[in-house]
C-alpha cells in the first residue's frame, strides 16, 4: 500500500506540468498549419515550412522534471515512513512511466506531423530519429518501423534525460552551500571558458574528440539508432548507480 502510494505520489507530482507541456506542444502543432494557411507569403512563393525535432522538447522537459523530483519527494517520503530504497526504486518506475508516456505522445506528434505534411500544404515534418540518423543516400525509416524504432529510441532518451536531471539534483542536495557554488561556477567556467580557450590553442582537437565520441557512441555515422539506444541505456545505468550511492546515506538537512 505504502509503495503504491509513493509511486502514485511521485507520478501525480508531475501531472500538472505534463498536461501543460502537452497542451503547449499540441498548440504549437496546431499553429503551424494555421500560420501557413494565413501566411500569404508562403502561398504565393510556394515556400515550405519544416517542423523538425519537436520530440526533443519532451527530453528537455523531462530533464527539468528530473531536476525537480528529489528534495520535496525525499522529505515527504521520510515523513511518511518510506525508506530511501523504496523511494528510489519507485522513482525509477516513475521515470520509466513518464518516458513511455512521453514517447507515446511523441509518436502522436509524429502521426499528426505525417497527417499535415504534404507538398501541397508546404509543411515538412521530421522526427528526431530521422534528423539524427537519416542523411542523403540512406534508406529512410518509414511506416511501422519508424514508429517502433522512434518509440524505443525516445523512451531510452527520455529515461536518460530524467536520470541526468535526478542525478544533478541529488548531487546538489548532498552538497553544502559553498560546494554548490563552487561546482556550479566551476562547471560553467570549465565548459564555457577554459575548454574553448584550450581548444582554440590546440586547433580544435578537444571539440573534434568530443564530436567523434558523440558520433560513435550515438551511432550517428553508422546510421544505427540501436547503438545510440545502447549508449543511452549504459549512461542511464551508470547515472542511476551513482545517484543511489548519493541517496542511500543522505539524511534530512537543517
Amino acid at each position, binding site marked *: *500500500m*505504502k*509503495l*503504491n*502510494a*509513493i509511486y*502514485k*505520489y511521485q507520478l501525480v507530482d508531475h501531472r500538472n506540468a505534463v498536461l501543460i507541456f502537452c497542451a503547449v506542444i499540441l498548440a504549437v502543432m496546431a499553429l503551424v498549419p494555421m500560420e501557413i494557411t494565413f501566411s500569404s507569403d508562403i502561398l504565393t512563393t510556394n515556400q515550405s515550412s519544416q517542423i523538425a525535432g519537436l520530440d526533443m522538447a519532451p527530453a528537455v522537459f523531462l530533464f527539468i522534471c528530473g531536476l525537480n523530483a528529489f528534495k*520535496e519527494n525525499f*522529505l*515527504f517520503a*521520510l*515523513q*511518511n*515512513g*518510506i*525508506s*530511501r*530504497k*523504496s523511494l528510489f526504486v519507485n522513482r525509477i518506475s516513475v521515470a520509466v512511466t513518464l518516458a513511455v508516456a512521453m514517447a507515446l505522445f511523441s509518436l502522436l506528434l509524429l502521426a499528426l506531423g505525417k497527417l499535415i505534411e504534404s507538398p501541397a500544404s508546404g509543411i515538412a515534418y521530421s522526427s528526431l530519429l530521422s534528423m539524427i540518423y537519416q542523411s542523403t543516400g540512406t534508406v529512410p525509416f518509414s511506416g511501422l518501423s519508424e514508429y517502433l524504432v522512434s518509440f524505443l529510441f525516445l523512451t531510452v532518451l527520455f529515461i536518460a534525460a530524467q536520470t541526468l536531471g535526478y542525478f544533478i539534483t541529488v548531487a546538489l542536495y548532498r552538497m553544502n552551500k559553498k560546494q554548490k557554488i563552487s561546482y556550479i561556477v566551476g562547471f560553467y567556467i570549465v565548459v564555457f571558458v577554459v575548454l574553448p580557450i584550450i581548444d582554440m590553442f590546440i586547433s580544435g582537437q578537444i571539440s573534434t574528440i568530443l564530436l567523434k565520441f558523440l558520433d560513435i557512441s550515438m551511432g550517428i555515422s553508422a546510421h544505427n539508432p540501436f547503438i545510440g539506444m545502447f549508449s543511452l541505456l549504459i549512461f542511464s545505468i551508470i547515472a542511476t548507480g551513482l545517484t543511489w550511492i548519493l541517496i542511500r*546515506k543522505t*539524511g*534530512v538537512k*537543517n
Partner: protein
Amino acid sequence: MNGIEINNVTKTFGDTLALNQVSLTFEPHKIYGLLGRNGAGKSTLLNIITNRLFADSGQVTIDDLSSVENDMAQGLLYLMSEKNLYPESMTCNEAFKWTKQFFKDFDLDYALNLAKQFKLNTKKKIRSLSTGYTSIFKIIIALSVNTPYVLFDEPVLGLDANHREMFYRLLIEKYSDNPFTAIISTHLIDEIANLLEYVMIIKNGEILVNESCETLLSNGYSVTGTIKHVDTFIADKEVIGEDVLGGLKTATIIGSLNKSTVPEGIEITNLDLQKLFIKLTNEE
C-alpha cells in the same frame, strides 16, 4: 510488541558528539517525556529512530524490526517534527488525503473534526500557515495517524495557551480511548509534567535520567510558606530552587521528607519537575 529499543547509539556531526552510546527502551502504551536543553541530542535521537538520520554506530529496533531503511518498521511510527517535511505547496486537505494513502489507519474524519475544533482552514496551503497553525496541522496528523508509536518533537511550538491546553486534553483523550506510545520532546516541562509516565533527560548526548515520573518526583518535594518559616526549615537541606512572591517563599528540596518535622505554616507539595530538570542539566 517490544517497543522501541535503542542500543549504544552514537552520532556525531563533524566534531560535535550529538549522542554518546545511548541505550534506552520506549515500552508500548506509555507516555514518555524526552527532556533536555537545546542541542542536548533529543531531535537527533528522534530522527535516528525514524530513519531520517543514520547513527554512526548502534542499533534501533521497533517491535524487533530494525528501524534502518525498513518500511515495515517505519510504518509503526510517526514523527511530528519541528521541521516541516510536507511540501509547502500542498493544502492541508491534500496532506490529510496523502497521509491516508501511507498510513492505512489514519482517521480522516477524526482529522477533519480536529481541524474544525482548532479552527484550521484545511483549504490553505501549508506555506501560508502561521507557525502556530503549522504546529496544529502536524498535531492533527499525529493524533489521527493511529500508529502504535507517535513521536512529538516540540509539538506546541508557536501555540497559544488555549491551543496548548487543547492539545494536552486531546492527547490524553486519545490515549485513554486507544493507548499508544507517545514520546514528547518539549521545553515546556511544567505543562506536560502531569501527562508523563516516564521521564528521560538527555544531557550532552548522554542519558542522565531514565525513570518513571513518580519515582523521579519522589526524590524531593517543595515547601511553601512565609520567608522566615521556609528559610528556617530549609537551612540544613539541599535546595535546588527558590521563588519569592510577596511575603511567600517556595523552595524545592532534594531528599526524603520526615513529615513529623514539618512546622506549622509550611505547606508541602510534590517536587517541581522543571526545577529538578534545571538543577540536573545546569552546566555548573
